[in-house]
């Protein structure tokens, strides 16, 4: 392996490691790891609250499901 290759490899490793450490520092400083319960529920909102199954494109929670499937149990 040539010296140029070694320098390139170490430059990439350095840039990569620095980026990872910065991301970790940013997450800790920004409180991303302070409230895990909040993190888990952050993808739910008023439109799709916890407890609502969403694999039903045209299904309304007040409606009975009009299920499209062949007769099969």
């Amino acid at each position, binding site marked *: *392996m*040539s010296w*140029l*290759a070694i320098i*390139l*490899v170490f430059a*990439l490793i350095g840039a*990569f490691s620095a*980026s*990872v450490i910065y*991301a*970790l520092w940013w*997450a800790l400083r920004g409180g*991303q*790891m302070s409230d*895990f*319960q*909040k*993190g*888990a*529920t*952050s*993808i*739910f909102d008023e*439109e*799709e*609250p*916890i*407890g*609502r*199954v*969403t*694999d*039903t*494109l*045209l*299904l*309304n*929670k*007040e*409606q*009975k*499901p*009009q*299920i*499209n*499937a*062949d*007769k*099969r*149990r």
Partner: protein
Amino acid sequence: MSLTAPGQHHADDRLDPKSFGQAQSDPTTMSMRSLIDESCKWPCLVFFTTGTAWLVIGSLFALVASIKLHTPRFMSDDAWLTFGRVRPAHLDSVVFGWASLTGIGTSLWLMCRLCRTPLRYPAMLVLAAILWNVGVLVGTIAVLSGHSTGVEWLEFPPYSTFLLFIAFGIVAIWAMVTFGQRQSGHVYVSQWYLFGALFWFPWLYATVQILIIGHLTSGMGQMSVQWWFAHNVLGLWFTPIGLATIYYLVPKVIGRPIYSYYLSILGFWSLALFYSWAGSHHFISGPAPAWLVTASIVGSVMMIIPVSTVAINHHMTVRKHFAVMRFSPTLRFIVFGAMSYTLVSVQGSSMSLHVLNEPTHFSHYTIAHAHLGLYAFFTMTMFGAMYYIVPRLTGREWSSSKLIRIHFWFAAIGIFMYWGFLSLGGLIQGFEMNQASSPLGDLVGKLGYWEGVKTFLGGFKAQNGVVPWLAIVKDTLPWLLSRSIAGTLMTLAHLAFGVLLLLNLTGWGRQRSGPTLFVSDAKGYQQSLTPVADWLVPDEHEGDAS
């Protein structure tokens, strides 16, 4: 670029299916999710559609290559259809065509959903998709016409790779801009994984292109870099996208937050710490420095930590909700992918150990393992994601639950037949090549004395310590034939999915007014939609559990 009726999600919009689409014409009345889905429509559909086309093309290449292994004269008259060209054409078209395109498409949609912001600059992303496809097309033609670089996983020539880099650069810049404009303060675990993937892939790809294609390394150094890339492109490019998808869609489909957010974050950072060490364990008993191989083995075994966190989280989140899999195509595909992730990861860690690596490394066992990762885990997860996302983009439900069932069962049976038979055949092949000299080989060799077991194993002949090479080759034939049968099943599954996608995009299929589920057992379906009492906060979500 005009955008037509998107998927609609707001409860008020869903009351009357006949009005579907009409309420979307005025952006001021649309919910944020509807706006996001509408903005994602064209870029995501271009990525998904072209990715699926590459899946079908890549599957046909795979079938031709597989049949050639047990019937060498099959399609052998033309140079471009010889094994040495068709096999890398299969690998590159599914890795850079299917898996990367659908992975990027899913990432775009997830990023917008998680940032709670509509997709901006859609034309730029469509351009990126076109550039990526041209790159894959040019690269595949080059491989078939004999202009491959000859380096496994990196067969595309530089002029093709250059196009991929430009396309990826556009996607990466877009992702950073979108993240900067996010409306949600919290960064969900899926976003961590997506950013990891978008950051790690160019690092991996640039490193190997500079060192290998730029001819800065040779010999053992080149091999070390190549296997580092080949291993990490699965672990640091496809795995984060797959896990991001699972961590978002499983809670969304069943309406329950993930079991332990702490574990999910621990899983991400431990993956970031340990996975990039892997790759050099492919040189066990080879000419690589011992410290390099040992460090790689340590990293591979330490992967037990992130894998365990993911396995515990997925299982405990879906626990008590497995009944939904009976109905939901998305959940069935995604859970299949999640369980396969655990399986392939544990298998991968075990394969880095001397005792198993030595007899299996140059056998079909490794091929089976690679397919378990890229197909059973990643591809099945992407299928699940597309079953969820595409109807929200086109505003049409899937037109046939029968075709979805065919798709699932052909793919599921196909991949496990592929993995199971090829793993067994690979083990026998490996033990025979090593003349049963490893501890596990000795054990199987002793089992070989029993006539019944010997017959089952296809005539294991290592008990005398010497197996002729031709006998080893012949012993692999039944397993290679089973591989072709399994590959045929998977190809049929892909054709079924291709037809479903075509019907959905064009609107030619049966128009549905409700969700397309596997089973029409409405009562059972209702019962599977049980509330998530342990997560509901009465003050905030009162009434939502109905």
